[in-house]
């Protein structure tokens, strides 16, 4: 079923779908970031993915593009999951917000901005959420030291 949705998605947004992967029975679609809002709206309205479970960023330090923003979607009617990913460059570290598609994206996007430093264009209230408002840096980035700012990178518990 997820595969059928992916096939339809490929038909509608042929130029946007970069990659489709299946791992442990879960389908992941990587798409271009310019079209993320349109694709999300399509998945919600046409394919029935009416529930955004989770949204987060992943830092692949050393690779280009450096970041991935991951959307875990759920269809409450057919009880199926689908994962959509968007590559984000370090130089142009922003994605359009999907909080207009699912209101639930509001806080997870704030969290992603706070901890990963990926900004969301058009977000209604993009403030830090877990870290203090005057904090500098984004702690979940791979080049952010585990033991706090200004410390060496953690080398394991025996270092």
């Amino acid at each position, binding site marked *: 079923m997820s595969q059928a949705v992916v096939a339809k998605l490929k038909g509608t947004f042929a130029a946007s779908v970069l990659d489709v992967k299946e791992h442990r029975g879960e389908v992941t679609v990587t798409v271009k970031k310019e079209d993320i809002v349109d694709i999300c709206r399509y998945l919600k309205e046409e394919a029935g993915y009416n529930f955004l479970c989770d949204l987060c960023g992943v830092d692949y330090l050393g690779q280009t593009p450096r970041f991935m923003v991951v959307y875990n979607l759920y269809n409450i009617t057919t009880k199926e*999951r689908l994962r959509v990913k968007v590559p984000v460059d370090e130089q142009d570290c922003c994605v359009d917000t999907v909080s207009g598609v699912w209101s639930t994206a509001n806080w997870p996007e704030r969290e992603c901005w706070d901890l990963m430093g990926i900004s969301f264009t058009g977000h209604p209230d993009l403030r830090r959420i877990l870290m203090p408002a005057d904090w500098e840096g984004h702690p979940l980035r791979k080049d952010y030291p585990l033991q706090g700012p200004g410390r060496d990178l953690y080398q394991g518990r025996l270092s």
Partner: protein
Amino acid sequence: MATKETMTINMGPQHPSTHGVLQLVLELDGETVVKAVPHIGFLHRGVEKLSENRSYHRALPLTDRLDYLAPMSNNLGYVLAVEKLLGITDQIPERAKVVRVMMAELTRIKSHLVWLATHALDIGAMTVFLYCFREREAIMDMYEKLSGARMTSNYFRVGGLSLDLPEGFENDVRDFIDAMPGHIDTYEGLLTGNKIWQKRTIGVAKISAEDAIDIGLTGPALRGSGVDWDLRRDNPYTGYEDYDFKVITRDGCDTFDRYKVRLDEMRESCKIIYQALDKLQPGPILADVPSVCLPAKKDVVNSIEGLIHQFKIITEGFKPEPGEVYQGIEAPKGELGYYMVSDGSANPFRMKIRPPSFVNLQALPQMVEGSLLADVIAAIGTLDIVLGEIDR
């Protein structure tokens, strides 16, 4: 002409009815809430960052500390996610699966008991608090017997369980669930027909099914708005497909109906535990996957191979092949999800937790704006939040 002014007040982070360190900035017009802005993060411990620097086995104890009222549910979500990442989901022994279901349901009862106790206390019904904590204490004792800890259980393992059930444990559980439905009747007797309780809950903090889905509510909070969705039935994990239980939904969309949903859920949990007890057969408690699971203690102390095996797993851990998985479970408070990314090393490359309370709390402003200040307390209670998992 009279001027209309609003007043801004701080509720929390040290307010007893914010269930932890939640701060709400409320803009009030008289007693009516015009705007509510939650501030969170006071308990942020960086669990996701920490886990990236620990092996998979060593990241497990961090998960107890998320929703500390339901530690075993957190452990369960984590071990299921890692097992999926490893591709060993089918190899988990039957006994381990049954014990997991049994403990997950006891945890649900335990979590709902604290919810009911504090929710009722917040809106003025003190007696229920004491009764609920009496029953919760029994579950805590079982936790202690089983894992050695009353709260931070750390009992499940990737591949199965850390220890087998202690002697007489099944009888303890049976005695408890024999008595539990009677206790729930007692709570209902104190609250359901109580005029004050009804006034404080019926029609309070309403949210329609459509809005609830849009804002991301899950669990009893969503089922109280009439959405029939329970991951135990719809995307079964750890053998839930073999159990017979009802998914409770009610259409009132208000605090009272969410209260009824949770109470009935406790009764259903008792039914599931009865079935689990009947299914329980002697057998192995860990999967036969030596590269992942620790060897039995007797092998470690009696053979050099066993010792080396244990040493390898403790020092090096195991390395799932690169890939990513998402595992959602029906935790007491809603959908608890773990999104795990592996890069082929012994540490999780990325572990994103989707805590139900975090997303549920987002609905709070929508639920309270336009209502009375006193209803904010009821709304926080009915969402059943735990700041440990919101802030992580």
